């Protein structure tokens, strides 16, 4: 398999996602394919059964509270992460290039992310605080 995991998002817009690292040293630039699911019809047991037939099973789960703001070219998110027992296990801030903006190159999108990062210096966000490890790398069993 060219990927390590599938993420099933169950809340808001339900989706299955595959991510593949483009660079070993960080997770700033990854292949990511989101497969939207019908949130009204999808149930966890259906996904569990489906992926079990492909030889997959749940490794871990987290609950996330997200506050998301969209701008023309990027979105920013503050989210709080809880483990399966609903104990808080972390807080994150993200700046992400919008997938619905017609960026022509990764460099163009990264420039917009860096511009927002500079603006966010006023609330304490700095390049030195960038995290390299993904949720998968931090929480996998």
């Amino acid at each position: 398999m060219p990927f390590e995991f599938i993420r099933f998002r169950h809340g808001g817009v339900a989706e299955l996602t595959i991510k593949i690292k483009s660079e070993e040293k960080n997770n700033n630039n990854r292949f990511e394919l989101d497969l939207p699911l019908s949130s009204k019809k999808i149930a966890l047991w259906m996904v569990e059964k489906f992926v079990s037939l492909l030889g997959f099973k749940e490794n871990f789960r987290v609950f996330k509270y997200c506050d998301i703001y969209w701008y023309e070219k990027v979105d920013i998110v503050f989210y709080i992460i809880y483990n399966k027992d609903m104990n808080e296990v972390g807080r994150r801030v993200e700046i992400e290039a919008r997938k619905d903006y017609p960026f022509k190159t990764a460099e163009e999108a990264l420039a917009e992310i860096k511009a927002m990062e500079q603006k966010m210096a006023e609330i304490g966000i700095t390049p030195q605080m960038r995290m390299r490890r993904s949720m998968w790398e931090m929480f996998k069993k």
Partner: protein
Amino acid sequence: MATEENFNIELTELEFKYDGSEVKLSKFVEFAQANSPVKRVEVSGWDHWIAF
């Protein structure tokens, strides 16, 4: 990096992620609102990581 010919933002996650434990949510919200967002969503739910 993908070239312009094969770059597809719809298949690319480009993001910077930061430890938010030292950032106050109220400050984040104040900053975000002051920069005139086109849309805001509060959402919560479970993410399940499924592996082989």
